[in-house]
């Protein structure tokens, strides 16, 4: 026998092989066979629990958990329990794509509700097709349900295309025609710019400048200094700490006096005007579900708000300081219910029935209800985008007040489908 081998003690060998065993622990664990019709339906949630949009991710997580709990309390879907598995994408496209894969291949998710970060969504959409799994992203970049999308990707909420169609015509006609854009320098910000530019030019407005700002910028002054003096309308789109920096510094430089400021509610999401000492006072913004209960005081909306425990005015969490992601959390709630509606309509039993689910949801009309408290909507067959109502609002005395509602029929006029995903094979 080899002398070295002879002197290999059992302890030495166990120590070395132990390290390898730790590294591979769980890899080869037997998994319960899925596919039996009594097995739970697994919904994966690719959620921004940490990172730049974690203040929204908190509410998305809460909404998804509440929806699954309510569905299970009422007997599940088609008699089957629903199981929610959540993975944190760290608001990072590379991590997000890996977590998307993990949700499907490790946790065996049947459907996945996506991040609100457009970069994460764009990284995940090709994987959705590759793994033949329905993906309902919450990010707003229009491309995800157009040239960068595929037949497995659906929306319940709005996107930059519908937002531009809803808000830009009225703002251009009533506030100002000379627009400058200052926005987050990634897919979402660019998508806002491109979509608005098209609508503004259609309605006779003019784009004077586009000013992309790298994410995480603390100092906005060099970017604000580029805003042309003749601007009548300064359009901004940021999230989180960047939003606060934009509101504060544009106010300090007197932009609120020299021109109108307009944005999507996204820029004010999870931020109360009261918490930023009037920095956003007077700003116009487009909401996708009013933050104040009084502007959508329906039993269904009241019930949803009670489930996530928020106050009627600021949307602040009871017993805490967090402010609800009011224009986005409902879409996560409704995404879970859309999955249910699709399963019930198509008779979906397992992943192999996913094409039937897709065909059933293409063109589905959703009536305002406990499942869909935001309002009636249509999930358009051609581009899988949702046609929904919007609200034009303004920050006044530290509150976000609705000025008027923009019905979905009005939005649809400037929001025709640009692709036809129904032609794509599975």
């Amino acid at each position: 026998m080899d002398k070295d081998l002879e002197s290999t003690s059992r302890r030495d060998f166990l120590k070395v092989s132990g390290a390898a065993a730790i590294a591979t622990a769980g890899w080869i664990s037997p998994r319960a066979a899925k596919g039996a019709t009594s097995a739970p339906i697994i919904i994966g949630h690719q959620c921004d629990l940490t990172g730049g949009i974690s203040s929204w991710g908190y509410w998305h997580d809460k909404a998804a958990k509440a929806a699954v709990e309510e569905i299970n309390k009422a007997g599940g879907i088609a008699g089957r329990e629903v199981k929610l598995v959540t993975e944190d994408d760290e608001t990072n496209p590379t991590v997000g794509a890996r977590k998307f894969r993990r949700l499907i291949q490790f946790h065996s998710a049947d459907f996945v509700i996506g991040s609100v970060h457009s970069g994460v969504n764009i990284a995940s959409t090709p994987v959705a097709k590759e793994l033949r799994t329905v993906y309902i992203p919450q990010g707003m970049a229009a491309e995800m349900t157009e040239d960068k999308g595929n037949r497995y990707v659906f929306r319940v909420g709005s996107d930059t295309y519908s937002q531009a169609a809803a808000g830009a015509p009225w703002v251009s006609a009533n506030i100002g025609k000379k627009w400058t854009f200052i926005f987050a320098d990634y897919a979402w910000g660019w998508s806002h710019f491109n979509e608005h530019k098209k609508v503004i030019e259609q309605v006779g407005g003019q784009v004077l400048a586009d000013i992309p700002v790298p994410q995480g910028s603390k100092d906005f002054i060099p970017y604000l200094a580029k805003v042309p003096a003749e601007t009548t309308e300064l359009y901004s789109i940021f999230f989180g700490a960047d939003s606060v920096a934009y509101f504060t510094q544009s106010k300090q430089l007197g932009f609120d006096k020299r021109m109108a400021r307009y944005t999507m509610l996204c820029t004010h999401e999870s931020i109360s005007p009261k918490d930023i000492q009037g920095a956003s006072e007077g700003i116009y913004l487009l909401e996708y579900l009013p933050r104040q209960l009084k502007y959508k005081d329906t039993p269904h909306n009241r019930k949803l708000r009670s489930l996530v425990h928020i106050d009627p005015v600021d949307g602040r969490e009871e017993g805490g300081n967090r402010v609800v992601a009011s224009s986005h959390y409902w879409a996560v709630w409704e995404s879970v219910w859309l999955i249910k509606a699709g399963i019930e309509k198509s008779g979906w039993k397992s992943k192999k029935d996913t094409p039937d689910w897709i065909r059933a949801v293409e063109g589905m009309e959703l009536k305002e209800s406990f499942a869909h408290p935001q309002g009636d909507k249509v999930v358009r067959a051609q581009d899988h985008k949702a046609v929904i109502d919007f609200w034009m609002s303004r920050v006044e005395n530290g509150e976000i007040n609705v000025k008027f509602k923009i019905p979905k029929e009005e939005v649809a006029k400037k929001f025709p489908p640009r692709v036809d995903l129904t032609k794509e094979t599975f």
Partner: protein
Amino acid sequence: MARPAPGGRLRAIQIAGGVVLLFLCAAPYLLGTYFRVFVTEMLIWGLFAMAFDIIYGYTGMLSFGQSTFFGAGAYAVGLTLVHAGSGVWLALGAALLVSLVLAAVIGYFAVKVSGHYFVIITVVFSLVFFRLTLQYKAVTGGDDGLSFQIPALNVGPLALSFYNPVVNYYFVFAVVLLSFLVCFLVMQSPWGRIFVSIRENEHRARLIGYNVERYKLLAFMLSGLFAGVAGALYALTFRYSNAALLHWTVSGQGVLWAIVGGAGTLVGPFLGTGLMVSFTDYIGFWFENYQILVGAVIILMVIVAPRGILGVLMGEGGKGGTSGGR
């Protein structure tokens, strides 16, 4: 220099290494779909950490700039496939060329300084290329990244699809194994010995007549080349590239994996990558602020086992510094 490991321990490690190699050969047939991709990813990151270790563990230069070459390799594959409509082999060739040329250019300036200045210059280069990638969004996709389709890989009469995870795994495994063998031969050659002599005493290496800057540049280019290969494999596996891949924090991960596994070795970085990536993947599901735990593990490792896990296994846990070429 490192104390030689007792024969018994060394042999135990060799046996365990053989078992791991056998496991890797059969992995696609032993693992489920997720872990098949997971091990593929670990091999890629392990190669990246090993590439970093050429410059750090063997040559004694701490670089936070290797992510530039990883990102360059990934983007070279993506852009060649998207814009040139080329095949996989040409895309891989482009990745090798781009990362090698970039490493030569950056290395030319970086190796003129040492110590803290070298660390800073590598971080600065990394940030410059990261910002450029963000800036030229129309080409690179910036923050959102670039998704692309991978054509079939032509090997003789065979057309192999990267969308088949078994093909993808074996391709990555073969390239990583080949890269490991090339690095092993280089480190056993006079070049490898000169790298170690520069790490151990740069002044003495200069006095005995070696052109230290030239060998540092050589080590930097080798490291950049293999980091670029890892980036290319990443792009082929995930069909995606993103500006974030060039950020210096990606280099930071390579640094940690190499140190945890055992710097100054070729096996240690793979071991560190395997353990740390598994740890974060598992813990991350249960504890969203898992990076706190990762930090604690690293602090513990640096204090208790400065030579990394491989050092502990070889009975050298208490010795400081890197452990010499193995």
